[in-house]
């Protein structure tokens, strides 16, 4: 697992992506979240499973998402995650921060 990966998700953005995925798709299980991010980014981003689940559990602990056991489309037991009110607020904050960050980075790169 120590081999470098090209499309690792920038540290700190995983939460934003997860929140956004849940905001647009409602209830999702972990695998669907990875699939969604991969699909929505047109295969540019790939979620590292090793960080997704700790992140999900941390967000659950922080009250950003809530989780419950259900059945997947293929009738397998799966843990579904959904956004809480606090999660929605956090998403708005993180999105704004992200926009400012990318805008800043873009400007710096322009002048360089």
């Amino acid at each position, binding site marked *: *697992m120590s081999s470098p990966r090209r499309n690792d998700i920038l540290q700190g953005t995983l939460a934003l992506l997860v929140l956004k995925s849940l905001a647009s798709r409602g209830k999702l*299980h*972990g*695998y669907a979240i990875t*699939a969604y991010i991969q699909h929505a980014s047109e295969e540019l981003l790939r979620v*590292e*499973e*090793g*960080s997704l*689940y*700790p992140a999900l*559990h*941390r967000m*659950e*602990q922080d009250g950003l998402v*809530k*989780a419950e056991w259900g059945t*997947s489309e*293929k009738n*397998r*037991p*799966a*843990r579904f995650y959904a956004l809480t009110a606090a999660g929605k607020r956090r998403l708005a904050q993180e999105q704004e921060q992200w926009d400012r960050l990318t805008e800043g980075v873009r400007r710096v790169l322009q002048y360089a």
Partner: protein
Amino acid sequence: MSWSRRLRNLFRPEGLSHDIDREMAFHLSEKADELEARGMSRPDAEREARKRFGHRGTMRENTREVDVLGWLESLVADARYAFRALRANPGFTTVAVLSLGLGIGANTAIFSLVNAVILRALPIERSEELVRVVNTGGNGDFTNPIWEGLRDTPGMESYFAYGSTGFNLATGGEVRNASGAWVSGSMFPALRVRPVAGRLLEPSDDRRGCSGVAVVSEGFAAREFGGAANAVGQKVTLQGKPFELIGVVEPGFFGMEVGEQTAIYAPICSIQLVASEPNVLDRRSRWFLSVYGRRHPENGLEAEQALLKRVSPPIFAATIPPNWSPADQKEYETMLLTVQDAAGGFSGLRSTYKDALFVLLVVVATVLVIGCANVANLLLARAAARQHELAVRLAIGAGRWRLVRQMLTESLMLAFAGGIAGLLFARWASALLVRFFSTRRDAVFLDLTLDGRVLLFSIAAAFLTGLLFGLIPAWRASRVDPQSAMKAQGRGVTRGSRFALGRALVAGQVALSLVLIVAAGLLMGSFRKLVTMDPGFRREGVLLVSMNLANTGWPEPQRRATHRQILDRLRDMPGVKQAGASYTTPLSNSSWNDRIAVPGYAPSSGRDSTVMFNAVSEGWFATMGTDLVAGRDFGPADGTGAQVVVVNETLAKKFFPGESPLGRIVTVVTSDKPGPPMEVIGVVRDAKYQALREENQPTAYVPIDQGEWWGTWIEYQLRSDATPAALIPLVKSIAADMSPAITLEFNTFEEQVSASLRRPRLLATLSGFFAALALTLAVIGLYGTVAYGVARRRSEIGVRLALGAARGRVLRMVLADAGRLALVGIVAGVATALGTTRLLTSFLYGLTATDIRTLALSAVLLAGAAIAASLLPAWRAASLDPTETLREE
């Protein structure tokens, strides 16, 4: 996530891991499906999915770590590690656990007494609803007419009356006492106490003119009849009268008084059965009942108080004591009733020992703190020794917080092991402590079963001590600099600060133990003064005999004549030097006072003219060892003719200042009629009456046969050269000769005096014991620190010796160093003692809280102990072999 789930996770970590596993398994199969759909074979797809997932164990660990309370799971790992570390070091662990166990155990033992005596509610259903009736002056004693007035007021059905008493079970001869109570028929229904056999008293059992029935405790039924079932229907003799047992009360219920195990309950109406006069239930000045009630669960205390206030006036108006002065009667009529919370019942023990128990709690808490300092010092030394290990763990990436947690886990484990040891120790110690409260004649019963409150106390004590001694070493260990510590290659480079901290801890220990030694010195000094003081009588060699003639059924003249005959026969007994008879004896808990009038003395208040009284026979003063200082003792003829009185020095000084009282006239003042004039015929030395520590009270003695005869029982005192108890068989046979219905009770005067010193003895013994424990702990701490200092300076001392320093000089150097440490502690301790011993003032006798002798002696004792503790390490330092220490470098 809900709390219930968090808790479930906490106690079922394997369940949590299972959840995570399931979630991951789901992910893997979805991934494999996807890969399979792209054309991989199933096994390949599964392998690939697993590969992409990465290291499953790490991942699971990461997920678990963040999971709610998941950190507690890693605590289990910490605990396992700590357990291994403690097991690897059995010496350290044993010393730490034992000292903590003693400390926590002592605290738990004292606290379980506090709990049983002060905090615990009565063992009845919904005890929080219990209220006690008191009058507006706060007094809770009532007469039977007041109680009956209250009982017969509509709406008062849940109220009941209770009067503690002692029952004599013997029909004649020596008394067999059982603790008992007169209770109203409403008591058992109101308390919702149930029988284990037969039935309990009901309101219909408690009607005027009732026959003798009684209910007994399970313990009594087992002792006397071999079981509850056998007891029902049996007859017992109470004060010489037969009573039928109708039931046995459920175990656990001990009555309304904490500290007593009430054995027999009889209805109030049956007082008339054992009384020697008619109409005792109508007596309006016999205040012997306490009244309780159960308030309506929806009513607050205020509503109940308002109710009682409303019903009071007619009750008091109908029960005015006829022989009171008009002013007193007026005051009586305006009294009002109110209620207070009474979930804990009442307790003489509670009012006597509340403050003493508080003092002991402070003392044991201090001992625990001193013990904690020792364990902290041990941990500091151990942390220093483990620096290398900690440095390695830091270097390979352990978080500092993680290390602190690790160290704290170890401390808390030690503390909890100490707590368990403490609980075991406390169970034994608290039972032992109860014996301090009891005397042969007055057994104290306390329910010391471990309840939630005591358990919580011990757990809290253990947790706090764990934090107290663990936090500083843990924090310190985490500040290890991995580089320098690793470079030192485990040679244990210790920074000076760790040593300074250890020294500060020891100085604090010395200071605290000095405070305890001073406190113990003061309490033991007071006790010694009480034991060795001259109380105005001689306590040794006197047998006390209480004789009760009530069951003989004799009329008064015959009782008087018999008492004379008995006194004469007692005087003729072989081995008896002197004998006397009296109404009461000093320190017996029974006393008599009255107001007197002396021509020429204008009292400032009723209290100012009140003096203590006793009625005594001729020869009584000689028997008790109270010397006559002027005039004469009573003769056998006194009391039948003109009235006479003997007074003590304090009375003489107060009422006849500067002149001889002999030949002067004293009268007793009662509200209805002035007493006959009594001529003072003698003056005796002052003697203590109610307590050894009292100020001498003005006391008047009248001849035992003078005036109205006061009852059916009488006290005899026999002074002998041999053991007083040897006289008992002969006294019994003399009494039996007169009538087999006479009942007798024996005690020695010495034991009676000693029983009055229970509280000071308890305080002196326990504070002495704990001060010795504190001193031992401080000495161990000091020894450890000095020895550690010497070990640290081995090479320095070796160099000094090699360069020609005299061994005496090295010895002095180490001793001086220890001396400075002790001195700082002693100075701080003296200052603290001066500020805090004031709290003991009410327990002291014959010395002040800042008694300079006690302070000086304690300081000298501690200084001596400090020198003794440092002599061994100092001597070791002085006898070091310089070549050897230098070779070690």
